[in-house]
């Protein structure tokens, strides 16, 4: 987890409200990723970034948006939270595309 923090670590919210999760890195890595982890599915990629203001969609991007205005910060926004978005969200970083990813501690999100 060194060099990567996620905030908040836990959040409970209501259906229909917007939610923003933050990932902050001190490693100056170019690539940043957001995943969600659900039982039986492993990790699924939501969005990733390959530089400031450069982002692209992953496997499960519907209902999520991201922004990266600084190298160190990657924000994930749930535009209107739904119960199906209850999950554990992980941020990851990598220095080189296709290579080792380093993961943050995760954010547990409960949407009621």
């Amino acid at each position, binding site marked *: *987890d060194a060099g*990567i923090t996620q905030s908040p670590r836990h959040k409970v919210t209501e259906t229909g409200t917007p939610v923003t999760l933050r990932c902050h890195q001190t490693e100056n890595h170019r690539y940043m*990723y957001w*995943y969600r982890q659900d039982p*039986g*599915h*492993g*990790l*699924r*990629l939501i969005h990733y970034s390959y530089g400031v203001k450069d982002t*692209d969609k992953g*496997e499960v991007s519907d209902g999520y948006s991201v922004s990266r205005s600084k190298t160190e910060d990657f924000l994930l926004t749930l535009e209107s939270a739904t119960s199906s978005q209850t999950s554990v969200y*992980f941020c*990851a970083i990598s220095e080189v*595309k*296709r*290579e*080792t*990813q*380093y*993961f*943050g*501690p*995760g954010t547990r999100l409960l949407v009621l």
Partner: protein
Amino acid sequence: SQQGEEDPQALSIQEGENATMNCSYKTSINNLQWYRQNSGRGLVHLILIRSNEREKHSGRLRVTLDTSKKSSSLLITASRAADTASYFCATVDFDGQNFVFGPGTRLSVLP
């Protein structure tokens, strides 16, 4: 569609025994990576094996890759209670656009 699939889903062994987990995938890959996740924590990278490599070692870990069978195995030798965790394989395609994790193998090492 899910690329990597680990097998077995769960494995329980005694301390000191070896643990073997397998990963199968469907399409061509640039590399395959293994990660460990302790309960309630983020994933930790264990080892990366490239498509032109057949075997790699790191401490008590041994990873093999058979691209003709589209499969990989992770062997943990002389297991310890601290090895109790979930283990995931992740496959990476040549574009690097797809970094796909399998559902994981849950390993329990009993003291």
